[in-house]
């Protein structure tokens, strides 16, 4: 897909949850909390998404600080860039929706 394709809701919330390094279960909790319980990531979906985000180089899996047995996911510079771009895109969508439906909202 050319330019900047939209992220899925799952990808968006995973990247957003990783503003601080986090382990898998933490991402599930953060997503649910951030979305006020609306978005729940199922573990299988999350696992698949994390693997493909690692493959793309948007996130990395590293040993957590001070505990080499525990691993955490961390957002890379590229991942952060994608996330910022997506927020801008979403702003545009929301702005246009508000402009046209303004009175109904």
């Amino acid at each position, binding site marked *: 897909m050319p330019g900047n394709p939209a992220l899925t809701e799952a990808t968006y919330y995973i990247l957003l949850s990783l503003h601080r390094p986090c382990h*898998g279960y933490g991402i599930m909790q953060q997503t649910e909390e951030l979305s006020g319980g609306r978005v729940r990531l199922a*573990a299988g979906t999350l696992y698949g998404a994390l693997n493909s985000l690692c493959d793309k180089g948007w996130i990395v899996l590293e040993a957590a600080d001070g505990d080499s047995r525990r691993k955490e996911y961390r957002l890379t510079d590229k991942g952060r860039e994608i996330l910022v771009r997506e927020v801008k895109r979403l702003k545009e969508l929301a702005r246009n929706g508000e402009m046209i439906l303004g009175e109904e909202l």
Partner: protein
Amino acid sequence: MERKTLTRWFWVWQFEKEEEWLNAMAADGWVLESVGFCRYTFIRCEPGTYTVRTEMHPYDEEYVKFMEETGAEYIGRMMMWIYFRKKTEDGVFDLYSDIDSRISHLDRIGKVLTAVGGANLLIGLANSFHSGARVGGVNLLCATLLMYGLGRIHGKKEALEKERELHE
């Protein structure tokens, strides 16, 4: 603890039905404890205290560890199918929460069916030529059945893809 073992056969395209049955058992007070070939062993539990899920997943220890971290319990695996359960009090338990990952699950099943079905087809044809129709017939029957399964899985996939055209 009271246990019972039941024998049940599910075709590969009936995995949702299998899961429904396992959850009906759990709602009845029998939660899945181990799986074998067409054999399901259940242990007594408080009715409705567990949700059971199954999926096709290649062997991956990391995945099982990941699931356990999220509070799911690994029950076991049979062929390429893996079984988990989770206490209902620990929240809703699903393996997939979006259309994309449901489609990739169906793709995984489709790939295995294609590989096994294709192998049966080749063996069946080779045997038919060399040893006569009866020997090759078994493989050809298997191949036909697997291809039928592939069709059913493909149908499920198409329905999801249609849904995805409008929303994720």
